[in-house]
């Protein structure tokens, strides 16, 4: 199934609440299957209407007023339990059979049905509301040569619409023209794929020439032929026929519904797909109905009970036949038989009567009560202050109320990295300039001081352009820079010049950087705060404020970053005419290209780099080189030739870059921290102690993932071995041969070690290898190996692969899985896992919307699983035990009573309390029970409903007797005593860890204890009897408790941020998380020499030049 999914269809998961696709209206659905090609004529509504394409109105609701009742009832009766009780109700309406009055079944049934119906209706009203809200959004449509403000739902295929900045894209549009140069538009696709950085779309030149001229646009007679509606976000194929010429269309020219227009004043677009045909709507994945294992258990139990019920009834029916023959026939004096009823028929009838009487064993209230309890537990999750994040004002939210107890059974957690484990905030943390380390604080005795929130921050107020959010703690660096240290200044000048960040200055001094990756942004921001403010860029120049002085550099060339080069450089000419090459990149790469004079500095810097890497920071090395005028002239010439060459352009450019980027002078190194969310390492540690395995599935690079692994304590230096399976060919194409080689050890491990491994291992596997490993023949081995490792990190995986990994574990381990993530790329795994948790963070709402639980911080997972999960599970189990016990007691009473009442299905407990007990016992405990009983047995009730409540006086007369109370007392003690005795004996003879802990550490330790109990709950405890192990655990627990006590008393004590300082030779490579520079657009020649080249653009776009990455690549195989 996995391979099929992989090969046939890519699903970028965008998730929407269910039902969207299912309930497309039939005409659309029909079209979807029959439409082979879409043909759209601009500005020609009549022609487009003739194709019956869906307009832009969407409908995600299920019902309307008239269809609600029948459809909803139909859906509800499709559930087995409801159908069963309907059947019972029918049985009870037959007087000969009815042993209970019909409302004992009707009441709960109606209650259940109406509760569900109200919930469904509420959901649907919300859907109607949101549909209406979306459909009624306004947009400018060009109709008959005039721009009209119209509702979204009135937009037709073939209309030309005008979008403005920060508007949502109305439908899937062909971009015609925009306000920006080169017909570019910037869009944010967070709703589609969870990426917050801006992406660039570009219109065709011929359409772009129309600009915002209404005449030209309304005269536009382009015809578009393209693929039918589909759900592939990254592919589009079509042609535009305009003035007799054909232009190819690709994804680059399409604005998808769901994107937001940013930094673009206006743009015009031609509607190609509307409403339900848009890629966004086509992607609305089906939400699977999630059920917990308790649900399955319940279903099995209920089925068994059915069998049991029918056996009982059969026995009783036989009994009835015997009684009728032996006793009933002679008792006719006082109780004549009904006409036409003989012993056989009577026995048949009594079978059904007993089905009704004994139906308490298959209780409808079980389902209701379970739901109510779960709802209650969900409320406790929503109410938990310890899972409330004050910064965003976000409480935890149980979006699915039916999965609580499953939280107590999780064995595998699949976590996203960015935004989940990390904050996706990069902070410039440390740097090494000319062999001096900055960024750490030392006290007077020279001891390193731990930096906490309270540590004094460097005051940047002298710099008006400084970013107030930037924190730095080491004053000496600022002093050095302000003193005029040339290296320090060069260092920050480099940071201010060598990047691809786009500045945005709305008001004077209010700078905003639009960086493609957060780490690049953090470096430029650091330079900004230290007095080298990057202010604006044009294709030829970069303007920076150097210590308050405006300096404009001429930008001669940008030697772009890519994955192989692992560095980027700029060549600039300063106002005084000096030409300099500034370069930053991965240490190994830069070190090879340094001048020999830097040997000594290299040594010192290497030491610093090791230290940074040991702290889990991302490092970059900076270097520069002065260039000679004549050499540069000649190089520029060659560069121009190379970049305009038609073949071998890439190689020739690479060669040129290689040539100029050598003999550089080392400046220093930067260390950027990929900030972990608070408490992540501790949480992971706790969860690991509860025997929950955590796998990290990330789209990030291997180096980054590895880094985070170390800083989360998932990877540790003392681990025996960290296996890295990374088959990565230069082109990024998966090479089967290499992957197989990489996986060779998999087989080796599997044969050498069998399930039990000594020591800790970790596995890091990348997407390409994973794609290979997930194939049929290898997936089991992958799983086996992965399960032997303490830590598994999958990097560079696609959303689909994330889901596949989850499915793999689900399928073969039969373990309960939990997926946690925050972005749209995590949606697939969130949906695939038993429980999906969404982090309500920065990356849009996608993950949250498809999740079952959501909260703001990863660390709340600990409380969710170890406290709420455990409690929910225990409560549910206790409840179920009690419920079945109660029902069986009820049933057996009637079973035994049958032997005394001639198997006549007479009740020995009156029917009304029966209903009450079933319905309300669990809801309102004994007090409610007695209250209701007394009301129902009161004279008042009797006088109003004489024939319905005939038990007047029963309670009063029976409870008057001391006998009754004595018996109740005796009976309750009799019920309790054996259990107490048994438990006591067990505690004495074979105590569990729990017992020992409880005994020793009585009060308020919650987590530590929960963790262990949790692991016990989900595991077989049989082999835990070994004393040594137990003692260890108990010791640990005591230690833990001490820790927790201190933590609880002195709240949020700063957790030791990095307890173990690794001595590591492993350093991060080039620290950018992207694989390519900010598109070819910003940094490439096209951008740099924009005007003269304009005419060639249309051509060059269609060649194989590197395209801006619009969406995360997903391999299609």
């Amino acid at each position, binding site marked *: 199934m996995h391979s099929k999914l992989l090969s046939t269809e890519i699903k970028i998961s965008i998730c929407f609440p269910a039902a969207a696709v299912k309930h497309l209206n039939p005409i659309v659905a029909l079209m979807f299957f029959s439409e082979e090609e879409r043909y759209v004529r601009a500005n020609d509504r009549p022609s487009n209407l003739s194709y019956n394409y869906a307009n832009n109105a969407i409908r995600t609701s299920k019902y309307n007023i008239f269809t609600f009742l029948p459809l909803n009832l139909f859906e509800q009766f499709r559930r087995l339990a409801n159908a069963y009780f309907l059947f019972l109700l029918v049985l009870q309406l037959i007087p000969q059979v009815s042993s209970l009055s019909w409302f004992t079944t009707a009441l709960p049934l109606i209650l259940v049905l109406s509760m569900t119906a109200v919930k469904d209706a509420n959901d649907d009203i919300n*859907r109607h509301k*949101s549909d209406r809200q979306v459909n009624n959004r306004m947009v400018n449509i060009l109709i008959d040569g005039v721009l009209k403000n119209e509702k979204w739902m009135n937009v037709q295929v073939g209309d030309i619409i005008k979008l403005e900045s920060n508007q949502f894209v109305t439908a899937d549009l062909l971009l015609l023209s925009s306000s920006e140069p080169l017909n570019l538009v910037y869009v944010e696709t967070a709703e589609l794929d969870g990426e917050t950085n801006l992406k660039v779309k570009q219109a065709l030149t011929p359409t772009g020439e129309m600009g915002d001229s209404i005449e030209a646009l309304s005269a536009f007679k382009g015809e578009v032929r393209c693929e039918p509606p589909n759900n592939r976000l990254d592919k589009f194929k079509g042609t535009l026929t305009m003035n007799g010429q054909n232009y190819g269309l690709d994804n680059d020219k399409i604005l998808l519904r769901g994107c937001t227009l940013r930094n673009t004043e206006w743009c015009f677009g031609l509607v190609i797909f509307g409403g339900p045909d848009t890629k966004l709507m086509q992607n609305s994945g089906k939400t699977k109905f999630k059920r917990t294992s308790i649900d399955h258990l319940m279903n099995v139990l209920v089925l068994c009970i059915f069998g049991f019920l029918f056996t009982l009834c059969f026995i009783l029916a036989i009994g009835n036949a015997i009684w009728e023959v032996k006793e009933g026939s002679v*008792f006719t004096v006082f109780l004549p038989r009904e006409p036409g009823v003989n012993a056989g028929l009577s026995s048949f009838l009594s079978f059904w009567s007993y089905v009704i009487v004994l139906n308490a064993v298959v209780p409808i209230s079980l389902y209701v009560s379970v739901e109510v309890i779960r709802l209650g537990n969900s409320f406790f999750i929503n109410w938990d202050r310890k899972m409330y994040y004050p910064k965003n004002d976000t409480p935890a939210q149980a979006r699915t109320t039916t999965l609580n107890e499953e939280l107590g059974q999780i064995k595998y957690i699949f976590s996203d990295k960015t935004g989940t484990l990390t904050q996706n905030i990069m902070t410039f943390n440390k740097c090494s300039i000319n062999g001096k380390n900055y960024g750490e604080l030392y006290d007077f005795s020279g001891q390193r001081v731990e930096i906490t929130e309270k540590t004094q921050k460097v005051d940047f107020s002298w710099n008006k352009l400084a970013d107030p959010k930037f924190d730095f703690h080491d004053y000496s660096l600022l002093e050095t820079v302000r003193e005029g240290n040339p290296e320090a200044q060069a260092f920050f000048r480099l940071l201010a010049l060598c990047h691809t960040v786009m500045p945005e200055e709305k008001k004077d001094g209010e700078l905003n950087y639009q960086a493609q990756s957060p780490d690049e942004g953090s470096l430029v921001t650091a330079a900004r705060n230290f007095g080298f403010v990057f202010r604006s860029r044009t294709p030829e120049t970069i303007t920076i404020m150097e210590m308050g002085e405006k300096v404009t550099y001429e930008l001669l060339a940008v030697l772009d970053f890519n994955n192989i080069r692992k560095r980027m450089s700029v060549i600039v000419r300063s106002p005084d005419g000096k030409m300099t090459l500034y370069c930053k990149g991965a240490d190994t790469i830069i070190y090879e290209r340094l001048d020999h004079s830097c040997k000594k500095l290299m040594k010192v810097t290497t030491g610093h780099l090791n230290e940074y890497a040991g702290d889990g920071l991302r490092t970059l090395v900076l270097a520069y080189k002065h260039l000679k005028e004549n050499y540069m002239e000649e190089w520029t010439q060659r560069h121009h030739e190379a970049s305009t060459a038609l073949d071998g352009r890439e190689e020739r450019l690479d060669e040129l870059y290689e040539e100029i980027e050598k003999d550089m002078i080392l400046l220093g190194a930067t260390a950027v921290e990929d900030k972990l969310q608070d408490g992540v390492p501790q949480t992971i540690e706790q969860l690991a102690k509860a025997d929950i395995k955590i796998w990290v599935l990330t789209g990030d690079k291997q180096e980054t993932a590895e880094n985070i692994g170390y800083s989360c304590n998932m990877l540790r230096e003392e681990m025996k071995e960290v296996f890295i399976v990374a088959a990565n060919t230069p082109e990024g194409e998966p090479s089967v041969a290499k992957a197989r080689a990489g996986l060779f050890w998999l087989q080796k491990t599997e044969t050498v070690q069998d399930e039990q491994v000594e020591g800790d291992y970790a596995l890091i596997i990348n997407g390409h290898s994973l794609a290979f490993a997930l194939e049929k023949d290898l997936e089991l081995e992958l799983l086996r190996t992965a399960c032997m490792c303490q830590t598994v990190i999958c990097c560079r995986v696609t959303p689909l692969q994330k889901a596949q990994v989850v499915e793999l574990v689900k399928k073969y381990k039969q373990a309960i899985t939990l997926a946690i993530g925050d972005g749209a790329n995590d949606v697939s795994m969130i949906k695939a896992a038993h429980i999906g948790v969404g982090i309500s963070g920065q990356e849009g709402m996608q993950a949250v919307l498809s999740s079952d639980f959501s909260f703001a911080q990863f660390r709340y997972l600990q409380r969710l699983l170890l406290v709420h999960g455990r409690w929910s599970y225990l409560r549910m189990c206790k409840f179920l035990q009690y419920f079945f016990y109660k029902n069986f007691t009820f049933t057996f009473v009637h079973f035994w009573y049958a032997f005394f*009442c001639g198997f006549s299905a007479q009740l020995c407990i009156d029917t009304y309390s029966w209903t009450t007990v079933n319905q309300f016992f669990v809801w309102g405990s004994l007090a409610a029970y007695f209250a209701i009983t007394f009301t129902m047995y009161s004279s008042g009730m009797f006088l109003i409903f004489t024939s319905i409540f005939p038990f007047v006086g029963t309670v009063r007369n029976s409870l008057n007797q001391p006998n009754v109370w004595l018996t109740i007392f*005796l009976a309750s003690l009799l019920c309790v005593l054996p259990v107490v005795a048994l438990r006591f004996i067990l505690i004495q003879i074979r105590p569990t860890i729990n017992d020992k802990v409880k005994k020793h550490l009585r009060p308020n330790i919650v987590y530590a204890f929960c963790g262990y109990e949790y692991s016990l709950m989900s595991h077989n405890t049989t082999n835990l009897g070994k004393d040594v192990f137990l003692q260890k655990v108990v010791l640990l627990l005591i230690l833990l408790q001490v820790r927790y006590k201190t933590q609880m008393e002195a709240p949020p004590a700063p957790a030791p941020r990095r307890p173990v300082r690794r001595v590591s030779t492993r350093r991060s490579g080039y620290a950018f998380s992207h694989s390519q520079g900010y598109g070819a657009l910003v940094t490439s020649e096209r951008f740099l020499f924009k005007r003269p080249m304009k005419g060639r653009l249309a051509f060059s776009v269609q060649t194989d030049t590197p395209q801006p990455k619009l969406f995360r690549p997903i391999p299609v195989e």
Partner: protein
Amino acid sequence: MASSYKDEDGHITVSGSGAAAGAGGGSLRSKKPENTAFKQQRLPAWQPILTAGTVLPAFFIIGLMFIPIGIGLYVTSNNIKEFEIDYTGVEMSSPCFTCAQNFSWNGTKPCTCSVPFHLDQPYESNVFMYYGLSNFYQNHRRYVKSRDDSQLNGNEESLRKPSKECEPYAKHGNKPIAPCGAIANSMFNDSLELIYNDPNGTKVQIPLTATGIAWWTDKHVKFRNPGAENTNLTVVFQGTTQPVNWRRPVFQLDSDPDNNGFINEDFIVWMRTAALPTFRKLYRIIQRRSNVHPTLPRGNYTLEVVYNYPVRSFEGRKRMILSTISWMGGKNPFLGIAYISVGSVCFLLGVVLLIIHHKYGNRNNAAEISH
């Protein structure tokens, strides 16, 4: 569904309007959950830890407490005097044999028989006189539901139109039966009289009280005669007919107007159906007269029976029971025995647990403490 970005949109507007409201004087509500004991799940709870220090004393205390209670109950129950005599007339020697044999539904002359018996002990205080039936399925489902509570409560309409539940005893001829149903129809109609044979030869009839034998709620709430103001029951019940097996109509059950019709206590007692096929129902109370003489002195008695009620066809039995009562009701040695045995078991268990604790518990504790 497009709500993915709708929600986002909605979110923005919500926060925006919230901020605006805050500025406009409204309070900006934080979503922070309330800090109440209930919501934070801090309600006091008790989780008993089963230590030797709590469990063992509990068992001993329960044991020591239950045994005396049990003994007390047993003694109380034993002090209750009870006498039972079967007058069905199955055996040839039985005085009622002929009556039982010659029973016919429409015999005009009631058959009477006298059953002599001897009380070994004097019965102090009030004595309760019961009749007992065996193998009588008053708890059969069809039997139990064969009544019309509404009619019995004095509803005029139900009086004329008995509920269908009463079938086949709802109507006789064309007239509605009052009271309808199988229960009423099968009402116990033997009359029992007690005669004390004084050693000096005189026969003294023991006075029997026929009222105060039904529940107060039954007599005053559940059962009412129709036609509240009209005390003339004959008029009220006009147009109805008596149950098939009855010898006289319901308004002639007693001469006392407060004990006649539906509120006749014998009738009420009968209508409260028994739970088991063997049961006893209160028939009369023998009030204590003086403090000096016992209510029923020791000696010979005769039970005078007007034998109307046939039970032979279904092998039923009829008994007459005389019993005194205590604070805990009638004679019931079971509860006392149960208490005694539970108490002893508890005590024994306590001992066993103590031994187990000594053997195993210390070992475990020692192991823990050593580390």
